[in-house]
Structures are given as C-alpha cells and as structure tokens.
C-alpha cells in the first residue's frame, strides 16, 4: 500500500506538535524538527509526482472507506505539481528564515515554527484533498495560521491588517461553505468526483447550482484577492514578518487559484462553466481590470514591499483571466503561471527578505547602493524581475506566451493588451528600483562620508542559497516549460 499521499500531509502535522513539545526541552529542537518534517513531506510529494507520472491519478482513502462515504485524497498531475511546489518552497523558506526569525521574533521562535508547519499542512491538504468540505476545513487552518503570523509583524499596524484580513477572510470562507451547502442540498454528496457525476444529470438551469457556483467562486476570489476584493492583501503582506511573508505571498494566492481551477474543471465541469453560464466575458474583464489596477497601483508605491504586494494583485489577474478564457491554451497558461508565479514571487520575496535583513527598511529612499553591497541578492532580484516582466529565457515569458496565445484564440484582445501593458509597467517599476539601487550613492544618506571603498554587507549564506536555488529553478522552468506543459498540464486538460 502506498502511504505517500498521507505522509505528505502528516509529516508537517505531526512535526508541528512534536516541535511544540520539543520546545519545552530545548527551543532550537523545534526548528530542526520543522526542517525534517518539511523535508520529509517534500520527499513524499516528489514520490507522489513520480507515481502520478508513471501510473496516473493516485487515490488514498482515509480510514479505508470508499470515496463518497469517506474522505479521499486524490492526486492527479495538476495537484502533484502544486504539491511539489508547495513543499519545496516551504522547505527552502524554512532554511532561509532561521536567521530572520531569530531577529524578528526571538522569544517566540518555536511557536512560530509550529504555526509555520500548520500553515504548510493547510496548503498541502487543500491541494491534495478530494472532498469539498475537507477543503473548507483546511482553508480555515491556512487562514487561521496566516492571521496569526501576519499579526506577529510590526506592532499595531500588523494587528489591524490581520484583523481586517480576518473579517474579509471569514466572509470568503463562509461564502465557500455556503456554496458547498447549496451543492450538497442539490447533489447529496461532498466528494468532488461524485458531485461532478451527479451534477451532470441535473438540468443546467437549476438556480441552486448557479448560486452554489457563484458563492464558491466568490469565496475563493475573496481568499485569493482578485481586484475589487483585494483590500486586505497589501497591508497584510506588507506588515507580516518577513519569514512568513516570503511563504504566504507566493503560495496562498496560488493555492487559491488552484482551488478555483479545480472547482471549474473537476467539480462543475468546463462545459457547465463556459457553455451553460455566460459569465466568462465578465470575468475576463475582471481579470483585465485586476491586471491594470494592480500594475498602476504598484506604480504609486514608495516602498519595495508594498510594490511587490500590488504586483501579486496584478498577477492574480493573469491567472483568473487566463483560466476563464475558455480554451485549453488559456487554461494551460494559467496553470503554468501558478507554478511560475510562485517561483518568481518567492524569489522576489527572498531577495526582499535579504534586503530587509541587512537594511531594516525597504522604502525606495533606503535602497541606494545595493548593487555594490549585496551583489548576489541583487542578481537574484534582477532575474526574478526579468521573469516578472517576461524576458524570454526565464519562465515568466512562457506562461505569458501561452496566455497571450489563448487570448488571441478566444478573441479576447483586451486581455492580451492588458498583459502587454502590465509587462511594460513592471519593466518601468523594476528599472526605477534598479536605478535607485545602482546609481544613487548611498554614503550621504547614512551620514558617514566614507567614499573610499564599498563594504560588502551581503546577507548570510543560509539566505543566499535558497535564492540561488530558486533563481536556477526560474531559468529551468523557463527552459523546460514545453516539457511541463506537455507532460503534466495538457494530459490533465484533455
């Protein structure tokens, strides 16, 4: 019997409680337990990915009950990819955060690691599960941990941001729960596959099913911060402690995009979404607005961190719009962009974390001379920025390429235009940042007139190695983009 899908989730879960207990013996134990647990879950995820590529969908029946009665974990090529992504990023961030957590929350570091593992459990569980209600519970775990960890940041403002996030997040999760309720009352089942089978027999004009769909999607949109519903995101991510912002920014929204794709494809069926409902045009427009709004709001920020959060809002527009284009290319582009965007955002936030570690503040006025003092970090930042802009050898280019192709195929030229405009805006943004970092001298601002030589104040190695690995992954994902699409995404979509 293959237990890998269960171990995937269980390793960080039991790791969390063990590190909570171990902290009473020696606080530093909890970090090592967390490291081991995430590594184990990464290994399990890789094994599952191998199984999926070899033998197709992997199922794991919890407690041994057959699917509609019990809960099953159902992993196909789409979630296998996301699972590997999550566990890898979680592990790398854990490696990187040992120093920054010690600096930011020194007295509560063990609790932070416990929380962190629970957060990872939530993300992995959301991705792996095949049950609609289980998804809700795991979303709540993820949200609860992120509320807490966001509130660990800057005193005062981060609490308000977290409180705001709680209110909006609860509305989102409750909408999703309500949608599941409407689905349950019309189908009588909670298993995704089973619901999909029953839904096919229900006439398409049922208002209950429509309500269920709208509520579920609305809930997920709130959680992923699509443009008009994004109000919680910038503050929450900007005031969170860096060690957590680095993992929540790339993963949380992407996992929610995954949930949306899963609901659209597996539960309701693309046929229902695009042929019975006529919402696709509106949603693509929403995506366009999100892209443009995110990009332009990013222009007006004077803080690197705030700017990056608005770029996340912009990227969500890519994925939502792409998924709703209504053709395979657009969907493939959106799914590929989940992977790529997670990598790019992670690289950006890792670099940001390094800068914060050295400079404390990341307002633009505080970034002078970074290229000289932190060359490695800036190299990673440049690579990630190029990827966000969409320069060919990096992965960002390829997902945008698919999205643009999909947009042309669907005749959604406004979407293609928005993509290109946002790329330009991102280019402007990042060159503005690079200009500050490269050209402006730093000495005057710090008050000591030491023009003689530049002192290297690079971040510690434990923070540079993950950045290097992710930068490599960005290039690799770009180089092998065709392979990923052909072996993982397209078979799933057909």
């Amino acid at each position, binding site marked *: 019997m293959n237990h890998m899908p269960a171990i995937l989730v269980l390793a960080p879960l039991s790791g969390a409680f063990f590190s909570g207990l171990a902290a009473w013996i020696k606080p530093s134990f909890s970090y090592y337990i967390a490291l081991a647990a995430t590594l184990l879950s990464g290994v399990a995820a890789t094994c599952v990915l191998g199984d999926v590529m070899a033998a197709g969908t992997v199922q794991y029946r919890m407690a041994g009950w057959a699917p509609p009665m019990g809960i099953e974990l159902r992993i196909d090529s789409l979630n296998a990819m996301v699972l590997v992504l999550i566990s890898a990023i979680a592990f790398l961030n854990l490696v990187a955060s040992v120093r920054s957590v010690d600096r930011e929350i020194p007295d509560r570091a063990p609790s932070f690691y416990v929380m962190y593992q629970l957060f990872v459990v939530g993300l992995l569980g959301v991705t792996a599960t095949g049950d609609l209600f289980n998804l809700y519970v795991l979303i709540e775990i993820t949200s609860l941990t992120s509320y807490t960890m966001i509130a660990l940041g800057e005193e*005062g403002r981060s609490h308000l941001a977290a409180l705001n996030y709680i209110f909006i997040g609860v509305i989102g999760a409750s909408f999703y729960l*309500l949608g599941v309720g409407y689905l*349950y*009352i019309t189908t009588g089942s909670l298993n995704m596959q089973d619901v999909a089978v029953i839904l096919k027999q229900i006439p398409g004009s049922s208002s209950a099913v429509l309500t269920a769909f709208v509520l579920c999607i609305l809930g997920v949109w709130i959680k992923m911060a699509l443009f008009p519903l994004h109000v919680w995101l910038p503050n929450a991510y900007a005031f969170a402690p860096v060690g957590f912002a680095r993992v929540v920014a790339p993963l949380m929204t992407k996992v929610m995009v995954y949930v949306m794709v899963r609901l659209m494809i597996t539960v309701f069926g693309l046929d229902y979404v695009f042929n019975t409902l006529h919402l696709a045009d509106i949603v693509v427009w929403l995506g366009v607005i999100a892209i443009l709004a995110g990009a332009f709001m990013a222009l007006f920020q004077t803080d690197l961190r705030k700017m990056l959060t608005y770029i996340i809002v912009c990227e969500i527009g890519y994925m939502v719009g792409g998924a709703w284009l209504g053709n395979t290319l657009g969907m493939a582009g959106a799914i590929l962009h989940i992977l790529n965007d997670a990598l790019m955002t992670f690289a950006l936030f890792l670099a940001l974390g390094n800068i914060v570690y050295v400079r404390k503040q990341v307002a633009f006025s505080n970034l002078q001379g970074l290229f000289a003092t932190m060359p490695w970090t800036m190299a990673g930042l440049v690579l990630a920025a190029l990827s966000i802009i969409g320069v060919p050898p990096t992965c960002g280019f390829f997902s945008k390429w698919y999205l643009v192709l999909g947009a042309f195929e669907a005749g959604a030229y406004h979407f293609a235009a928005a993509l290109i405009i946002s790329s330009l805006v991102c280019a402007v943004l990042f060159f503005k940042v690079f200009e500050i970092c490269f050209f402006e001298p730093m000495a005057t601002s710090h008050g000591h007139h030491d023009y003689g030589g530049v002192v290297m104040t690079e971040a510690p190695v434990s923070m540079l190695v993950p950045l290097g690995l992710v930068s490599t992954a960005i290039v690799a994902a770009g180089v092998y983009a065709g392979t990923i699409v052909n072996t993982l995404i397209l078979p799933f979509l057909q």
Partner: protein
Amino acid sequence: MTELVGLIVAKYNFWLYIILMMIGLYAMIAKNNLMKKLVGMNIFQTAIILFYVSIGYKHGATLPIIQGDHGGHGTHGAVIHAAEYINPLPHVLMLTAIVVSVATFGVAMALCVRVYRRYQTLEEDELRIRLSEK
C-alpha cells in the same frame, strides 16, 4: 398568490436564515466597532450553520442516534429504515464549522485586545485617525 404563500410556508426556515445571515453580513461590513463586527461575524457563521442543519431535517424522523441498542451489539436483525432518522452528515459538518468559528473568534478577540492595548480604541474611524497621525 397561494403558490407564493405555499412557497414561503414550505421553506420558511430558509428565508429566515437568509435574513439572519444578512444581519450578520451587514454588521460585519457596516459597523464601526471591531467587537461588534466580531459578533456580526459570529451571527453570520451561525446562520450558515442554521442553513446546514435545516438541510438535514426530515419531517417525521427522529434523532440520528439509533434507538434501542445501547450496548451496540449489532442490529440483531432489526432493519434500520433510513427515513426514520435525521440525516447525520450536516450535523457532522456543522460540528466542525462551529469549532472553526470559535477558534476564529478567539483569535480575533486576542487581536482586538492587542489593538486596544496599542491604540486605546476599538472604533474604526478613530483607528484610522490614529494611523494617519503617525
């Protein structure tokens, strides 16, 4: 007209749950006080629970606890008719949802206490003024 009345009477539980839910949602969005918002949040979640429990209800059925077999020694051939018992699944889901809601409530209240400790107020507009001052 009679159809409408029939519709209203047959589903009055659902209509009332919608009213309750809208009260909660309105409180969450429009109220100025953070604690009030929290209470609104709880009302909102309770309304959802009400909806689920209403799904599970069956006329003429009894509790989802099998009768007359306290030791659990098997059924002894007595056939259990599904129509006699209320649907247990929504109850299970709602137990989980209540637990989740109380957990969220606790965390939110801890945050409220922290916010009050820092800013000495719980009113949103005053908080906004305090934030813009600094």
